[in-house]
């Protein structure tokens, strides 16, 4: 029986005494009529592509077509190198990797949509940074990515993960929920902590609109990847301490969908409202189309 909700996922894990990633890889193997190992190799390909994107992003300062963005990661690297962050190297890496990946994306570079391209920096930054800092094996990083995938998949069964359909809550918000679950898995959490972490992350980002300036995946998208990656860490830390969401994850996902429906089309990737309609955005737009 296919799993369609988080409550079913939790029940299945508990019944069979399995982790979320085990259920995820078994379900995927069943669906695509293949072996679990084949699924894991495909996930590894994604993981390696994510690491490549981070690597390219960390060394490039190429600007996007707009000329606005592309050197924020370089700024972070420069400051961290001389001063360091108050919050330590794992915080430095998460923010660097998230922005490095998002900047690769705006350059039309090669990235992994996770779940979407606009939110492509969030899951990789958390998994790769935690993996490096805690010396977590590649196999366990694959487990984390499978966990993230299962969370995203269950949400996408109810809501289309597109800014044009439900706003940024369905892109960066869902990415953050996926990253929170993945991090809980990496730090030793069970199914309960994984689902609670994703619930806490998603619940606290409901209502986030998609209002990119001039319709480009740049403002506010790039920096938002860093913010939502850190947001995922907060959720995972709380969940691992046993803090729980009073509203169950399935009801939060329903709320995500309803909030998306209530959201004005002006705030859903049309660039007709929100930040895209500010005075400065309109000035930027004039300059851009004069080019």
């Amino acid at each position, binding site marked *: 029986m296919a799993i369609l909700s988080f409550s079913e996922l939790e029940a299945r894990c508990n019944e069979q005494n399995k982790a979320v990633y085990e259920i995820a890889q078994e379900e995927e193997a069943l669906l695509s009529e293949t072996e679990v190992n084949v699924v894991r190799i*495909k996930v590894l390909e994604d993981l390696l592509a994510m690491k490549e994107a981070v690597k390219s992003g960390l060394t490039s300062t190429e600007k996007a077509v707009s000329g606005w963005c592309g050197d924020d990661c370089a700024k972070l690297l420069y400051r961290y190198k001389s001063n360091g962050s108050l919050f330590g190297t794992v915080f430095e890496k998460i923010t660097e990797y998230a922005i490095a990946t998002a900047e690769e994306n705006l350059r039309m570079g090669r990235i992994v949509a996770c779940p979407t391209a606009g939110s492509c920096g969030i899951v990789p930054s958390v998994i790769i940074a935690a993996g490096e800092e805690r010396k977590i094996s590649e196999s366990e990083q694959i487990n984390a990515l499978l966990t993230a995938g299962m969370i995203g*998949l269950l949400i996408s069964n109810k809501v289309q993960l*597109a800014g044009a359909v439900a706003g940024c809550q369905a892109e960066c918000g869902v990415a953050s929920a996926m990253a929170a679950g993945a991090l809980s898995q990496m730090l030793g959490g069970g199914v309960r902590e994984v689902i609670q972490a994703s619930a806490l992350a998603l619940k606290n980002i409901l209502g986030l609109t998609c209002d990119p300036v001039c*319709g480009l995946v740049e403002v506010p998208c790039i920096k938002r990847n860093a913010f939502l990656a850190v947001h995922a860490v907060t959720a995972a830390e709380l969940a691992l301490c046993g803090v729980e969401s009073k509203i169950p994850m399935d009801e939060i996902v329903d709320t995500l969908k309803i909030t998306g429906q209530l959201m004005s089309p002006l705030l859903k990737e049309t660039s007709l409202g929100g930040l895209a309609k500010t005075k400065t955005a309109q000035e930027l737009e004039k300059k851009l189309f004069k080019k």
Partner: protein
Amino acid sequence: MNSLFSVISPIMVGPSSSHTAGAVRLGLMARNIYKNDFSKVKFVLYNSFATTGFGHGTDKGLLAGVLGYTVDDSGIKNIFDIVKDVDYSYEYAEDISRHPNSVDIIIDNKMTISGDSVGAGEIRINSINGFSVSLNGNYDTLLLMYKDKPGMISKVSDIIQKQRINIASLHCDRSAKGGTASMYLALDVPVGEDVVEKVKAISDVSFVTNIRKLK
């Protein structure tokens, strides 16, 4: 239930899964449906595709797709410099009855293929020359047009059954009773050209094509 890889893939060039990768895949599906060489293609972009497509490289993605580029090809970025012998054009429109990310792809003024980019790089082709279909590119599909009359489904499924191929789904549509009709079958295994020829040989079948699924 969908694949896990609908949320942790594709590996693609940016910047937008719905507006860049989805656009490439819509173009690729149009290419798979039309199949022949072409010299002219027009894209009509609707709603969010029309208003924000420029910034997401939607125009480049659609064109690259119909030319056979896959979503992770670094050439997409410079497609306008690469293309030489195809006459391409774009129009922009608003139609709130359609999906926010919607396009018509008109090839050689002969075939109009309409589709949506439904999120995370996933797509859906909704109509081919006005006949409604629902193709997501995840199945090999046999599509045919014919004169509406009794017995057509059994004739076609009989040919497929003899190949021992499982039909995942089957849909029909028609313009009017006795008018032009369309049928498409999603298959677990692709059929060969011999099957296409056999279906073509059924009387009153005017058009048959074998649409490969997207990688």
